[in-house]
């Protein structure tokens, strides 16, 4: 009788029912090659277990050891870790932490920016802080692929989990700020504003998306960012892209 290698593997892993097991064992008794194949599977499994076994005995790093402790320790470690985390690990954040950071930052910046007066690019509305003037225009019509003639430079455009289109941006307004804005029915609501690192006194916008913005993008994005084509289509449609096409 002929058995597939998958079948022999399942036998070696103890996954076959009684009947199949008996069949294989009967065949193995008369076919040494079959017995060797089963033995190979078992040996491989044992070799793997042995090779990865030592990891179980490695001492836990403090951050992980604290996780096994009480909640206070967990939170203390999270806060410390959030401060120290490398930029490459934007995703390694609790959404809750990001949200807190976002609201704190918005609070800080609104205080500064609203007092500048005169054609402010921000307006407080019942829905929250929305973009006006040059910033609103940049968000509405700007393209990441086109060199910015305005002070607004677009980074990534993507769909929020809640369906709204969103864009990260850098905006030169006195000092440079970076942020994330999402399109409501008519306005661009500012989800986050943060300090943009100045580069050669020039805006290289998307390239210098600050960590808090990158983190928020990672947290709220649905799927992949728009490519150039989807981006221009969204601009051309006046952002009337169906909230949930795939129902």
């Amino acid at each position, binding site marked *: 009788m002929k058995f597939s290698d998958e079948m022999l593997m399942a036998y070696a892993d103890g996954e076959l029912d009684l009947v199949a097991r008996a069949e294989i064992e009967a065949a193995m008794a008369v076919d040494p090659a079959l017995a060797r194949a089963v033995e190979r599977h078992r040996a491989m499994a044992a*070799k793997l277990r042995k090779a990865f076994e030592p990891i179980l005995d*490695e001492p836990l790093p403090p951050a992980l050891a604290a996780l096994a402790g009480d909640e206070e320790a967990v939170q203390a470690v999270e806060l410390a870790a959030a401060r120290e985390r490398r*930029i490459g690990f934007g995703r390694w954040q609790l959404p809750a932490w990001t949200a807190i950071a976002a609201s704190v930052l918005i609070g800080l910046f609104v205080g500064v920016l609203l007092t500048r007066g005169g054609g402010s690019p921000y307006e407080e509305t019942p829905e929250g802080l929305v973009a006006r003037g040059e910033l609103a225009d940049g968000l509405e019509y700007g393209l990441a692929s086109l060199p910015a003639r305005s002070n607004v430079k677009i980074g990534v455009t993507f769909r929020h989990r809640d369906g709204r289109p969103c864009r990260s941006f850098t905006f030169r307004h006195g000092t440079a700020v970076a942020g994330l804005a999402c399109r409501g029915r008519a306005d661009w609501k500012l989800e986050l504003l943060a300090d943009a690192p100045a580069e050669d006194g020039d805006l290289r916008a998307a390239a210098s998306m600050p960590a808090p913005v990158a983190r928020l993008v*990672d947290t709220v994005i649905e799927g992949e960012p728009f490519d150039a084509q989807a981006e221009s289509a969204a601009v051309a449609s006046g952002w009337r892209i169906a909230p949930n096409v795939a129902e």
Partner: protein
Amino acid sequence: MSAKTPADEIRDALGDLLPRLRRFARVITRNVADADDLVQVTVEKALARAAQWRPGSRLDSWMFGIMKNAWVDEVRARRRRERVLAPEEAGATVGDRSAAARDIALSVQAAVARLPEDQRIAIALVLLEGLPYKEAAETLGIPIGTLTSRLARGRAMLQAILGNGGSA
């Protein structure tokens, strides 16, 4: 209130689970620093959505599933970042273990690291963590036939890399 919440139960189990989560993370990420970050994120997520865990069902496979998904998200986010971030930021490197240790364990680990991610994960769940095929397939949200074929292909490839002898 003296009844334990699901989050309490998860925390209680963590002492035993953490070493296994680390081992699984090591297979997925192939890297010590990433693995420990991944474990941390997995625990945070598990505690945050503890209410979704059905007490009585296997906590280990539930958390392995969370970990695998967290890694998929992370890889996606990294690809995106490579597109949007400046080179010095995108290049954040991760610690590479010194190549000094050259024992068998390492060569087996290295062989596993060369497998495609799907196969690595299937092998880790079944052969290292001892999940039954059915449980492993459910954890990954794939049909059992897909799981067994990933397992079989992964093993065949390991066999080819490590040689057919039973001992290395």
